């Protein structure tokens, strides 16, 4: 019984890591530009396809695949900000949100048209194989441990970046007080562009990590629908919140899928979100800052 729970826990955490990474992308862009990027899931999907291309067609090793997908997506993310979103700066949030939904549709459309990508499902080869580790009575796939470890490494790297790198601190500063950032000579628009790049890169990483768990296909971006409640659960606008929210949703899904009746797995996440929001309307890590006058 304990072993089984441990096994479910690991499966949930591994899945939750992917939710967390997509949620992180939502939160980064939201904090910086107060826009919800509904194309986040589709950017993840596109990243996975770039990874797939590098791995199967070019035959690159796994780590090079990851670097390739992240780099290409970061460039695409920055390009999207520069070409599509910067011109609508200052328009109502609704307009910008509609545009991001549009970007998502366009990405999905383009992917189905690319020869070799199309509408089929593909398997992304990973070096982890089908090995398992036995802990107590639990059988845990090496893949899951790898997913968890790699997410932890990325999150640690991001933490160090935001805490110590000048650009990282500037990103925080810009998201906390954009006007003051302008006054200090921080090139706010360039910083926002880099946040889009960072967010797209994180999405690509999430897409590749999802590959051992699910297949690569043009609709995998709908995972964004699970990552969004993860971000809300953590308190939209909180980076640690996005990660914790993602993990919670992954774990809840994993247990609900096993213990509850068929179909509960997909709604469990939303039930948890509703329950948490009833108790804490601003989410688990919701920040409320009141300005001193």
């Amino acid at each position, binding site marked *: 019984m304990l072993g089984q729970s441990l096994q479910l826990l690991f499966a949930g955490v591994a899945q939750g890591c992917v939710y967390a990474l997509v949620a992180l992308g939502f939160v980064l862009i939201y904090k910086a530009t107060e826009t919800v990027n509904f194309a986040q899931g589709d950017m993840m999907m596109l990243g996975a396809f770039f990874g797939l291309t590098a791995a199967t067609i070019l035959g690159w090793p796994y780590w090079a695949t990851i670097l390739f997908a992240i780099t290409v997506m970061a460039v695409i993310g920055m390009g999207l900000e520069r070409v599509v979103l910067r011109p609508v700066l200052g328009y109502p949030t609704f307009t910008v949100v509609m545009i991001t939904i549009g970007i998502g549709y366009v990405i999905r459309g383009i992917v189905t048209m690319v020869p070799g990508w199309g509408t089929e499902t593909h398997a992304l080869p990973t070096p982890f194989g089908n090995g398992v580790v036995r802990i107590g009575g639990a059988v845990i796939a090496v893949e899951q441990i790898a997913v968890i470890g790699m997410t932890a490494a990325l999150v640690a790297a991001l933490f160090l970046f935001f805490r110590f790198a000048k650009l990282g601190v500037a990103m925080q500063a810009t998201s906390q007080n954009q006007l003051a950032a302008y006054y200090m000579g921080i090139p706010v628009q360039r910083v926002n562009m880099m946040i889009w790049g960072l967010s797209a890169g994180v999405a690509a990483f999430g897409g590749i990590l999802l590959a051992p768990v699910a297949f690569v296909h043009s609709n995998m971006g709908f995972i964004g629908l699970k990552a969004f409640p993860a971000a809300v659960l953590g308190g939209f606008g909180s980076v640690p919140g996005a990660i914790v929210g993602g993990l919670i949703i992954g774990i809840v899904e994993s247990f609900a899928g096993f213990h509850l009746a068929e179909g509960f797995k997909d709604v469990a996440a939303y039930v948890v979100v509703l329950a948490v929001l009833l108790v804490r309307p601003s989410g688990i890590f919701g920040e409320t*800052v009141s300005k001193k006058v």
Partner: protein
Amino acid sequence: MGAVLELANVESSYGPVQALRGVSLTVPEGKIVTVLGANGAGKTTTLKTISGIIAPRKGQVKFRGEEIQGRAPDRIVRAGLVQVPEGREVFPLLSVEDNLRMGAYTRRDADGVAQDLAMVFGYFPILRERARQEAGQLSGGQQQMLAIARALLARPSVVLMDEPSLGLSPKLTKEIFDIILRINRERGVTILLVEQNAHMALKVADYGYVLEVGRIVMEDTGARLAEKEDIREFYLGMKSGGVRGERRWKRKKLWR
């Protein structure tokens, strides 16, 4: 000494609302110049136009002889002109030290930044004590000190200050003004000061302008402005003796 900053017939507007209707002023190197005016006179707009937050529709802003109007704010900061915004505008969730480091964002010389950090800690010892705290937790006066210190870290030759006394007690206001004066005298930083507290502003300023509904209506040295009848009445709230009847009438109106 020549003019370091010059505005010539600057007109700025927010959409259809014209806030500046041809403002011309000169800031000489190493001096403190103040711009007085009531709410909505266009003081903040003037500063925002200088620092590139809004582009003027007409007119020139010259910094050391070079036209800078309409340039991106980060290029203007790099040129050595930085603004202490109205209402402090610190980064609330960053530590005091990180706030200061953001002030030095445009700089590449780590040694110089470290020196200047020590310099501002000298002016504001409380910031050294609170270096690790989030800026949002500081009191209003400490936030104002942080905002000034942060601007100094860009190592500017001209600082624009927008209402540094806003919301501060008279004692703190005096402290802040003493430090503004010291920064000007000791570091040779030119200061363009916008204030509602005309009393304090005229005390420290070498030269002053009065702005009303987007136009400069009066200019003179600080000392002489402080003596002018209109200024004393409208900005300093003083009335010379002999008009008591009118004052009584005013008081009556207030009670209505």
